[in-house]
């Protein structure tokens, strides 16, 4: 009961399949170009990582690790943001998103890869450099530092690695499965796979929320083990979604530039993606401001030290740049309707937000090198750039491979008729 007959469904989907926009050429990445692009990106990535490694010997392990964690943090948060959005789309039965969802799937499925990229840094700091970046990883830290000793039940290598495996299993399993279900639907046309994805999202989303928060504690908050904030997980999530939406928008801008996805991603879709980007920039600002403000106002030394390092002295400028660049500029730039509806403008906005997302992680991680307000030496930024090029090269190289391996849009999603007709009234 309560379903439309298989026959009429077949008829509808035949209409979708016959739609000129669903043409094979339009929905697959240009194979040769994708392959060479991914080779280029992976090559640049490998070079960047090699330079980072060299930088570790030149400028010190702590600097190299910090720069590397900045880059990995940015892509990890972005892929987790994509995973969360993907599950939310499934849960709320979103229709308009059907033609764009595949890119969220591709990006989310790289969450375990981004997590694996974190592993070398963790292992190096645990085994080789002994707490150069994550202070608590030094075996003597717990004995020398009262607070770290207090937290030893949480801040210890065994727990860290066990949680790492849990995160990997959960994010890897869920993101892989959600993408596989969608790809399988392309093949079989079974509309009830959508229901499977929805059920899976229902139980996986709360778990993802918890693991994102704890991953945030593990990899970023515990860099300064004295610092603590209950808001931390939400902050990581908010920034991650901004970056994820920005990456997806940029992907479509590129794809349409090379003549793919014509008519599948219309100004209406850009408009809605732009609204998401706008909304999450505001949400990020709300979370970031609340966190800053409560620490500033209560003025308790046990937590203000973290904000002081980042909002006064050498890092004050970065903090202001972050507030203006991650919120102020996108807020006014993305507000007009016309901007959200033009691929060129929204692409510029998305690229800017992605850039600011990286700055966010610079702001979180890098000041640890400058305890006591010492200014960073401008000459050392080459190491950060190398690490970012390295990690982004690897990550986006794999992203392009993902992109090319399946069609660019779900082919037989039951929500396609709706997404193809999508229109913003008012």
């Amino acid at each position, binding site marked *: 009961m309560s379903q439309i007959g298989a026959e009429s469904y077949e008829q509808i989907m035949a209409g979708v399949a016959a739609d000129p926009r669903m043409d094979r050429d339009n929905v697959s990445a240009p194979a040769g170009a994708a392959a060479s692009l991914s080779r280029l990106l992976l090559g640049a990535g490998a070079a960047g990582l090699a330079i980072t490694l060299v930088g570790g010997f030149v400028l010190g392990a702590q600097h190299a690790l910090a720069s590397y964690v900045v880059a990995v943090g940015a892509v990890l948060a972005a892929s987790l943001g994509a995973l969360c959005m993907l599950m939310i789309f499934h849960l709320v039965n979103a229709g308009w998103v059907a033609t764009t969802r595949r890119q969220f799937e591709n990006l989310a499925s790289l969450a375990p890869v981004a997590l694996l990229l974190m592993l070398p840094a963790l292992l190096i700091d645990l085994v080789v450099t002994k707490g150069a970046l994550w202070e608590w990883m030094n075996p003597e830290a717990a004995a020398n530092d009262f607070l770290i000793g207090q937290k030893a039940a949480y801040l210890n290598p065994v727990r860290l690695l066990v949680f790492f495996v849990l995160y990997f299993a959960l994010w890897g399993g869920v993101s892989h499965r959600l993408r596989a279900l969608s790809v399988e639907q392309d093949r079989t046309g079974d509309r009830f796979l959508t229901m499977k994805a929805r059920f899976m999202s229902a139980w996986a989303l709360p778990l993802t929320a918890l693991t994102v928060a704890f991953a945030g504690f593990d990899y970023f908050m515990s860099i300064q083990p004295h610092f603590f904030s209950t808001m931390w997980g939400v902050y990581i999530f908010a920034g991650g979604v901004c970056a994820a939406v920005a990456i997806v928008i940029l992907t479509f801008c590129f794809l349409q530039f090379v003549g793919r996805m014509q008519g599948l991603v219309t100004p209406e879709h850009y408009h809605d993606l732009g609204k998401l980007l706008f909304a999450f920039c505001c949400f990020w600002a709300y979370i970031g401001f609340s966190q800053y403000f409560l620490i*500033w*106002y209560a*003025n308790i030394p046990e937590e203000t030290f973290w904000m002081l390092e980042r909002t006064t002295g050498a890092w004050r400028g970065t903090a202001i740049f972050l507030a203006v660049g991650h919120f102020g500029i996108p807020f006014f730039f993305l507000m007009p309707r016309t901007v959200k509806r033009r691929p060129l403008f929204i692409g510029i906005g998305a690229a800017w937000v992605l850039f600011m997302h990286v700055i966010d992680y610079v702001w979180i991680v890098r000041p640890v090198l400058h305890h006591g307000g010492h200014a960073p030496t401008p000459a050392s930024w080459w190491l950060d750039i190398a690490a970012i090029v390295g990690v982004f090269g690897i990550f986006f190289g794999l992203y392009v491979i993902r992109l090319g391996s399946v069609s660019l849009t779900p082919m037989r999603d039951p929500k396609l008729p709706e997404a193809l007709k999508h*229109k913003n009234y008012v």
Partner: protein
Amino acid sequence: MVITDLLADYAPFLFSRKAKYATEAGEPIWGVMAQFDDVVNAYHAAEKMRDAGFKHWDLHAPFPIHGIEEAMGIKRTILPFIVLGAMFTGVAVAAGMQWWITAVDYTGFTVQGKPYGAWQPFAMIIFEIGVLFSAFASLFGMLMLNGLPRWNHPLFCKDRFLDSSDDKFFVVVEARDPSFNPEQTSRFLREIGATAVELVEDA
């Protein structure tokens, strides 16, 4: 809108518009209205009205019809800019008020060692007042642009028009439209599918 039109709208007992046409009973004609019974017909009628080049005409409907802006050729409203202006005003008022009171006029009142002019505690009220001003601007700006409130209108005198807030749709052409002619316009409205056409007297 010309000022005389405005006066005629709001003070019809003082000013009357010079009517080009009159009914057989000698009443000045305000316009003509045509009833459509469902939204699809009304939508297509709107498209035809737009293509026929009418200027002072309207489609009255019990709910906002999706896409009617395109069908009628309505330009986007300037309301967002009014609201944006109100938002900036609110932000400036709130910021100026708090800063002047706290950092200029009433210093010597230290709270938790916070600087007098610290921006952080002002952010909340700046935001709230900005929102308050925008909300007022969006409701009252909308009413202003719509020429509301206006409790009297010639259309309200037509019994049939009372269904426009229930389930009927009315295309209305005003007599001040340059291409208005009682007979021709009525005929045109019938041709595009009106189920009933009536002349509306000025009131």
